[in-house]
């Protein structure tokens, strides 16, 4: 328990540091968001309007850095992340609220599936070394070494296009209104298939490889021989003795990859124009949309921290050696 509280305190500190950095970085970047907004409106703005924009975005020169910082914290706690420049005047929190479910559904499910499939195959490949499953390794390793955006583009070129089952971009059929009905969900699933498959192909081999190698290492441990000598069934030895122990490094890897669900999908969403967080970030960077960028970074930071906390707790539950007796 004490250990958990220590970890929690550490994560709170990290969160504070991350949010502070998140506040400063956009302000240190040269260039001015209002200028880019003015450019967007191509000079059709009056001086008063420009001045009021500066005030609105909190970029008026009068406020000191410190008072801006205090204001920023107040906004973070209220969940008010400012107004987006790109989608002016929509609040950033609303944009994130729309795109986050898409990213979490697509990448969350594929990350989980990739981990389960990869670990399962890894257990078998490591346990039955030299069987046909071992032949699978070079193939998956080859597929995972292909740069992701290229794999995505190839998939679009070959499989998507006019009259194809797979749509090439978007999260659902344009014209449909998002709702919990069969038509919309069917369309969403169909749009997510191609990105999901490409993510799966490029990520599954990492899980297979690490799980297989851990299985091979664990299989030569003395307690595995003892388990065989005890006359336990092959299944029990494989799962309860070998895989149970080999799983430990993979579980922490999985928990960490949960943190990258939100942030690590930039390429997927750009290639497939998928309406998720990564695509938001791409748009925000292009338009110097500071509030949106800050919002995306905030979400990514928090999700990485939460994933780390999950990794700590999972390890604590799975490996008794890390538990400190109170």
């Amino acid at each position: 328990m004490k250990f958990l509280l220590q970890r929690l305190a550490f994560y709170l500190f990290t969160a504070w540091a991350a949010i502070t950095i998140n506040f400063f970085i956009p302000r240190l970047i040269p260039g001015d968001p209002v200028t880019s907004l003015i450019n967007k409106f191509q000079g059709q703005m009056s001086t008063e309007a420009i001045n009021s924009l500066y005030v609105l975005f909190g970029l008026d020169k009068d406020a000191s850095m410190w008072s801006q910082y205090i204001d920023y914290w107040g906004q973070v706690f209220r969940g008010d992340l400012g107004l987006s420049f790109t989608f002016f005047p929509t609040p950033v929190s609303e944009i994130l609220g729309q795109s986050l479910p898409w990213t979490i559904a697509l990448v969350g499910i594929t990350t989980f599936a990739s981990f389960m499939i990869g670990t399962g195959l890894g257990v078998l490949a490591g346990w039955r070394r030299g069987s046909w499953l071992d032949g699978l390794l070079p193939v998956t390793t080859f597929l995972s070494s292909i740069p992701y955006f290229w794999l995505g583009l190839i998939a679009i070129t070959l499989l998507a296009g006019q009259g194809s089952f797979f749509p090439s971009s978007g999260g659902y059929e344009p014209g449909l209104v998002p709702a919990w009905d069969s038509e919309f969900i069917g369309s969403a699933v169909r749009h997510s298939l191609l990105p999901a498959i490409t993510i799966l192909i490029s990520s599954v081999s990492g899980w297979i490889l690490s799980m297989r190698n851990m299985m091979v290492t664990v299989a030569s441990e003395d307690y595995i021989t003892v388990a065989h000598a005890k006359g336990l069934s092959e299944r029990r030895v494989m799962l309860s003795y070998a895989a149970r122990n080999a799983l430990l490094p993979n579980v922490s890897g999985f928990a960490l990859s949960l943190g990258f669900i939100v942030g690590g999908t930039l390429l997927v969403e750009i290639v497939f124009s998928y309406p998720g967080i990564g695509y938001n970030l791409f748009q925000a960077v292009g338009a110097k949309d500071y509030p949106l960028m800050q919002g995306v970074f905030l979400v990514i930071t928090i999700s990485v921290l939460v994933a780390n906390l999950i990794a700590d707790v999972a390890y604590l539950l799975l490996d008794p050696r890390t538990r400190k007796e109170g």
Partner: protein
Amino acid sequence: MKAPVLEIRDFNVDYGLGDQAVRAVRDVTLTLHRGEVLGLAGESGSGKSTLAYGVTRLLPPPGVISGGSVIYHPPGDQPYDVMGLADAELRAFRWAETSIVFQGAMNSLNPVHKVSTQMLDVIRAHEPQLTPPARVARAKEMLKLVGISADRMDAYPHQLSGGMRQRVMIGMALVLEPQIVIMDEPTTALDVVMQRQILAQLVELRERLDFSVLFITHDLSLLVEFADRIAIMYGGRIVEEARSAELYKDSLHPYSEGLLRSFPALRGPRRELSGIPGSPPDLRGMPSGCAFHPRCPHAFDRCSTEIPVLGVPAARNDPNRSVACWLPGRVPVA
């Protein structure tokens, strides 16, 4: 003479296949009798552990049993060959009839499971008809016998000392009351005080539960005290077999003599420690004839050409002794 419980006949184990194969155990014939402690001694690489793993069919690849049979005599039932058992029968045979205590006291327990989980799963696998409370009672009783208090049942292995872990392993080995317990250097990783305690306990347990022990060690001094009979292995073969007192006083094979001269006696007249010159043979390129002849102080022409046969030595007309040596008086009678 007592009835046999395990007969190993013409047993051969190779590592690898074909021409590249290394023959680690050659033509070993050895009988373990009911209620006896049979010691198996030799230098590292002599094939002792390989023999133990082979007998229980636990050899990791590339180890291959290339010949021989292991006849097990269950009490009050027909004997059968362990080598001929199907997988399910083999699983039932393991631990219930023959359990093993392994070398590594530290690594024999799975670090992520409680002691209780690891003791109970073997009972559940072999005696599924027992109720869970009965299983727990059995495991607790066994731990008490080896001197571990019942409240350590829920401990994880890393919370136990090395000696306690080995006691747990011994308790686990006896929990199904097997006929045979194979001990592969069970005390090697422990300090001498702990060694003595555990061995004393083992002697006590053996009198109580009446199992036979195949005790493998490189420490011949330990065996002289503890074992009823001792077999000496060299280069994958048994070179001498005798009752331990006889072997200690009157060893016939020069290699046994060398081993006995490698440790000091606590009692009796002082003698010079000489050890054995040279090093154990490379199994990939065994010397011709008697494998020991390059290191043997008494070797003569015949030793380098013909492999000596294990048999009752002519000089001691005792059916309980056998030796494989060409020296005069040690050649088999017939």
